[in-house]
């Protein structure tokens, strides 16, 4: 890395140059060699299908028989498709609800956990456990716990004299259960990443702020949160990407229902591609989803960079 540059600069005799270049090229040969299994898998099983998806979005295909070139018909249809817009709105809403809430709660837990405490390891593990459980397990358990009639949550609510919430038959209730369950699964990961971030904050900064008379809240607001900004950026980007790719939980928990109240872009693409067997149209949804993710990620990075330039 940086050591290579000084070596080249200080090299006193020009004669040293050719053998050095040879070593570099042998190194780059080794680099490509060591990378090749990865590049092969990425190329064949990800980039090729991605290109094929773009290509397929201009065709009509059921997977059987010939495919037919339809130009931009799929895209035209997509813009007039109410289900697509509903899925888009749902996906944005899901990201807007799950990402900030899980970040705030996860940061709170990380802050509380960042000091010596008996049983800290056990607590940390408990908060993290939901993150390692599969989406399918979470969804089948969620269907049982949020069951409108016999689920434990509604039975608890009724036992204290409240009405049960229509978690399954109502659009808002279904989205609510999905969001609550998702936050439950995400908190642990956010906490671990923030804990790692907190450990990198030099103690002297906090002590200096304290000497200047900053209270607990002010230290958090003006020292800790700004210093955690790179962590936050990372978590937001990852959270948004994850939200736009949410599939297993939705597919098993609500199946996109009731109606299409919890249909997401990816579940809609899957339903069109593998259930309705409209592969060209599914590919179109996929291309647009990919563009959403790419644009959002780029916008977020640019905003952060602009803010840093202001400072």
């Amino acid at each position: 890395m940086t050591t290579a540059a000084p070596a080249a600069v200080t090299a006193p005799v020009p004669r040293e140059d050719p053998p050095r270049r040879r070593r570099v090229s042998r190194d780059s040969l080794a680099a490509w060699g060591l990378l090749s299994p990865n590049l092969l898998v990425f190329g064949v099983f990800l980039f090729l299908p991605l290109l094929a998806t773009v290509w397929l979005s201009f065709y009509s295909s059921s997977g059987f028989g010939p495919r037919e070139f339809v130009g931009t018909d799929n895209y035209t249809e997509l813009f007039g498709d109410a289900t697509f817009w509903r899925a888009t709105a749902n996906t944005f809403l899901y990201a807007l609800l799950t990402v900030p809430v899980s970040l705030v709660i996860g940061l709170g837990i990380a802050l509380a956990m960042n000091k010596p405490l008996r049983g800290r390891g056990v607590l940390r593990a408990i908060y993290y456990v939901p993150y390692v459980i599969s989406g399918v397990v979470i969804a089948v358990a969620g269907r049982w716990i949020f069951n409108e009639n016999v689920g434990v949550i509604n039975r608890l609510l009724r036992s204290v004299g409240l009405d049960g919430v229509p978690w399954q038959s109502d659009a808002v209730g279904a989205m609510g259960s999905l969001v609550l369950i998702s936050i439950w699964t995400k908190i642990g990961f956010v906490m671990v990443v923030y804990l790692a971030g907190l450990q990198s904050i030099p103690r002297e900064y906090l002590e200096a702020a304290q000497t200047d008379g900053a209270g607990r809240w002010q230290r958090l607001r003006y020292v800790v949160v700004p210093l955690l900004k790179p962590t936050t950026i990372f978590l937001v980007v990852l959270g948004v990407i994850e939200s736009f790719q949410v599939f297993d939980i939705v597919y098993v928990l609500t199946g996109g229902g009731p109606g299409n109240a919890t249909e997401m872009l990816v579940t809609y693409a899957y339903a069109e591609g593998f259930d309705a067997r409209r592969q060209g149209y599914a590919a179109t949804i996929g291309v647009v989803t990919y563009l959403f993710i790419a644009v959002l990620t780029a916008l977020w990075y640019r905003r952060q960079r602009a803010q840093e330039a202001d400072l």
Partner: protein
Amino acid sequence: MTALDRPAVRTGSRARRTAPPARGGAGWASWRAVALVVGALVMLFPLYWMVVTAFSDQGALTSGPLRFFPENPTLDGFRRAFTLLPFGQFFLNSTAIALVAMALSVTLNLLAGYVLAKYRFRGQQVVFIMIVSTLMIPVQVVMVPQFQLVAGLGWINSYWAVIIPRAAEAFGIFLCRQFMLGIPDEVLEAARLDGAGHLRIFWSVVLPMSRPLIAVLVILTFMYRWNEFAWPLIVLNDQQLFTVPIGLSFLQGEYGTDYPALMGMALLSTLPVLVVFALFQRQFVEGVARSGLR
């Protein structure tokens, strides 16, 4: 931290003994502990309820008063699950797939991370950006062409269809690169001067220095592969080859509401991930921290 909160009292033990402000810190600390414990109970409740359900009698769950522990604990739910679907087979299948896929992915991750962190070559930045950008590709979205590709290779109903397309893993490579940037070049240079080759340096120098990283990778990849649902569902049609998550979704779909059986299997299917997590969790936070995941 309570001592830090009150720098004034650090002047002497006498002052500290008489200083009332310490009580404020102690109060804060205990609130913190109470809040964390209450939060932990909320986090655990769904799992606890799964346990209660799994050991309960189907009828007692849906009628009568709400009970927070099974009145007559029974293993019938587990037994029924194993007779409804061949879950023993599913567990074997999932184990084989997850272990092979994990070994393969972790090896490839480490190699790529090492090269991207410690080699200099033309196109390096481009390769790294392209790899990281694959994180943005929703896997379900490219599944149609992926499926056609795998079908063309004749891999449908084979474990390779599940394992190979997921063998290269951008997030793991990203973690490896960030972690390995922290390995000093001097160490590698010294090994090189001793005559060690590329793979030799990787094996005897880089890997021993990457143990927390490997712990993170093992947890994450085992978890991803064990939990994966949509892709195996598409490429495995033969029930004998099903993985546990597919079995769970079928158990829910086809057999209505046998909740004890469903929750019993859901819990059993979570155990292996919990065991792997428990074994490696000590190194986990360190690994995350040193991967620059922040």
